[in-house]
């Protein structure tokens, strides 16, 4: 809830050039993967360094699964999941977690909704019992639903309304996706959020929350056999849902027109250029293609020696910031973004022309062997660094398994990054960084008289 703040952010902002499927290689843990009779999948990632566990449940439902006209419902339900069941009234679960010194939170993306607790390892069964109980036992009344609706409206203000760059991102997404629901913000459109009801939330809950639509990921101080036994005793008793709707979303037509939009905001002190291209995710790509896009994003826009930073900020000195990112972990088509902010005295048009020149050069000439090696070294090292953080490990597996990848895909990710060739990176740039696949957004300062008057 409160720190739900931090987590939902991921859904709206997306991690930059981080190995969304990264994890473990030679020295990684023995990851176990089971499926119960009722369809629940369990992944266990042992890490015995500290006597704590991270317990997460990931439902394969997100904002993109909402009924048209009900934007924000998946996330609203995430908040309402803390409002109690017949067995455990409002606040009980959170009180118990706090008593045992645990942390808890939840998060929503276009493709998944997740809940987690981080607790001492001897308390694992306790949190499993609560979590299994609220899988089907949620009870809602208007006296908890209505204040919470105000909370999500304040969350929308905090994330989007008060933040010009977030407003720009929302407009770009809406323009990029012509048909797929990824064009709607995870937080929702305000006019629809204001109308969300208790019945909407309960209906959505009954449709999607079930053991055969969930993955439990446990990372930390537990062994797989023990974890499995605990899961059988708790989640194992929840009956399977026999009418789960298939996850079929409207797909994008082939993009044919370069689009651009301008957002004028009185608070936009520094202009911003951001472009998003419609590109394959891991789940929608041909073999190796999304890894090539990950390497490309790193070479183009991650760090001081990236093409965009070096070209725009250091050499040409037309920008104060420049970057690129790509999110491989989406069920449907994903996006590859590039952007930056101009130096004072440089127009967005000039910055865009210089940015285009850099992209064109990569398409025409490819990347150097040294750049390729550097990017791969960094991405593969991230998989080793990840081993130091059980919560990150749990999150990577959960993300993968709810966005069309498997445990083996996660395990093999470093090898697949290692296998990326310069030619594949150039091919990816040529095929996907095509302006006709993109929306370019300009954030500028609103200097109209009305804006002056308002501020």
């Amino acid at each position: 809830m409160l720190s739900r703040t931090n987590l939902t952010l991921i859904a709206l902002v997306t991690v930059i050039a981080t190995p969304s499927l990264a994890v473990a290689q030679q020295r990684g843990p023995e990851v176990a993967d089971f499926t119960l009779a009722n369809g629940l999948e369990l992944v266990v990632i042992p890490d015995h360094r500290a006597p704590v566990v991270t317990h997460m449940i990931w439902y394969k439902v997100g904002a993109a699964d909402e009924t048209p006209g009900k934007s924000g419902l998946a996330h609203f339900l995430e908040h309402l999941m803390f409002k109690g069941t017949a067995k455990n009234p409002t606040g009980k679960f959170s009180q118990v977690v706090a008593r045992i010194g645990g942390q808890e939170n939840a998060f929503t993306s276009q493709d998944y909704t997740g809940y987690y607790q981080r607790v001492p390892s001897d308390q694992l069964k306790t949190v499993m019992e609560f979590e299994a109980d609220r899988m089907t036992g949620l009870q809602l009344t208007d006296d908890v639903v209505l204040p919470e609706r105000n909370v999500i409206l304040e969350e929308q203000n905090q994330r989007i309304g008060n933040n010009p760059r977030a407003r720009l991102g929302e407009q770009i997404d809406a323009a990029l996706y012509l048909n797929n629901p990824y064009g709607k913000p995870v937080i929702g459109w305000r006019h629809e959020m204001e109308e969300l009801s208790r019945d909407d939330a309960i209906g959505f809950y009954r449709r999607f929350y079930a053991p055969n639509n969930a993955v439990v990921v446990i990372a930390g101080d537990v062994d797989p056999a023990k974890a499995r036994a605990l899961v059988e005793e708790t989640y194992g008793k929840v009956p399977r849902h026999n009418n789960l709707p298939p996850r079929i979303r409207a797909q994008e037509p082939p993009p044919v027109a370069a689009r651009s939009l301008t957002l004028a905001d009185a608070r936009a002190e520094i202009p911003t250029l951001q472009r998003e291209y419609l590109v394959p995710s891991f789940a929608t790509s041909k073999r190796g293609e999304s890894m090539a896009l990950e390497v490309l994003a790193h070479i183009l826009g991650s760090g001081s020696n990236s093409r965009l930073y070096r070209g725009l900020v250091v050499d040409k000195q037309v920008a104060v910031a420049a970057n690129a990112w790509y999110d491989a972990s989406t069920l449907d088509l994903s996006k590859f973004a590039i952007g930056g902010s101009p130096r004072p005295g440089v127009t967005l048009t000039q910055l865009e022309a210089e940015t285009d020149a850099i992209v064109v050069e990569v398409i025409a000439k490819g990347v150097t062997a040294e750049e390729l090696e550097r990017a791969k070294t960094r991405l593969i090292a991230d998989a080793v660094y990840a081993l130091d953080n059980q919560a990150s490990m749990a999150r990577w597996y959960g993300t993968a398994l709810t966005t069309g990848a498997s445990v083996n895909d996660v395990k093999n990710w470093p090898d697949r990054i290692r296998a990326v060739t310069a030619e594949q990176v150039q091919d990816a740039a040529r095929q996907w960084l095509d302006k006709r696949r993109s929306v370019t957004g300009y954030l500028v300062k609103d200097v109209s008289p009305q804006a002056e008057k308002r501020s």
Partner: protein
Amino acid sequence: MIRVLSIFFAAAAAIASANTASAMTIEKIVSPAGIEAWLVREKALPLVTLNYAFHGGTTQDDAEKAGTANLAAALLDEGAGDLDGKAFHERVENHAIELGFQVGRDYIHGSLRALNEHRDEAFDLLRLALTSPRFDADAIDRLRGQTMATLQRDTTNPNDLASRRWWQTAFPDHPYGREGKGTLESVPRITAADMREYVRRVFARNELKVSIVGDVDAKTAGMLIDRAFGALPAKNDLKPIANATPSGLGRRIVINVDVPQAVVTFGGQGIARQDPEFMAAYIVNHILGGGSFSSRLYREVREKRGLAYGVSDSLVWFRRAAVMLGGTATRADRTADALAVIEQEVKRMAEEGPTPDELAAAKSFLKGSYALSLDTSGKIAAQLTQIQIDDLGIDYVQRRSALIDAVTIEDAKRVAKRLYGGGLLVTIAGKPKGLTSSGATE
């Protein structure tokens, strides 16, 4: 632009449970050059994590050149020794090394992470950054431009507006009142010579705190530490900083900016880390507005009334001052209501203190959550550095549970009165309906 660095924001609170304390052994080591460090051996992973701090943060800036320490820190990896910025970054990236520098008011903190196979290279690069940063003109120009852009952006950001005004008002004639990044006026004045002078005065061995976690024995750790820090001067050369207490309590300041949601910063007097009543205060503040779903502020402002997405406060301590500081963000037509609830809860805590049940629950949480704040190498290393800075002793991890248990309900009530009885300074950025500045002339 926006970079999500960490998904799990662990609670900063580190409190002992017997369990974990025994699972982790902290060794005090002294390097051949005589630098003391705390070491935790962690053999499970092929990497090393270093965390360190030098006394001397933004308080060392001249007022008219505020932002010097921050700009200097941003330039440390933009060229050092024979390596220009490009070459330095290439060496870092080719070996997947992570170097970080972060400036606070009293300290500059640093971190390093490397795979074992690259650790010598990593510590060599750190030495170069600390002992011979170049401060090349083109790099200064570039990083200054980035800082100016950030400062320009902050001028219409309600969070920055509310926070800056709070600090300026609480510490009007003290370095603690300044924004560490500096101002649009001060940053253009900073020269390479200013930054060299900052590095010369601050980067020294005498008040250096070092923590290291990894698959490394004491002897190797000592050699690595000397590799990075051994060549630094023996003694720093710092400006003295005066003690201060927050002023402006009882005032409310409204900053007009056209945003849909008003951002509120509130705060009052705090408590020194070395104060015998610190732990009681820490527990009481956790009950009032600490970062869990059961604090009074969370329950009253968010859960019952839906007035905000987040509301919390924490105790913040420096070498020369301490404050309680909190915040929320709420719709313009209900800002007055939210603020009234917060002020009422602070007052009620001052007058009545917590209940015995609340005290027991908070103790239980703070003891149990300790292990979660020590479950990665980076968190352990950062925590050990903070324990050294606060001078709590190498056995603090073991002692902390007992310190918590020792707090009685009488202690809690007494400290609540002392902590919250002095009133609040409140700053609000936005268009809060029906609220105006009050309490003193601006």
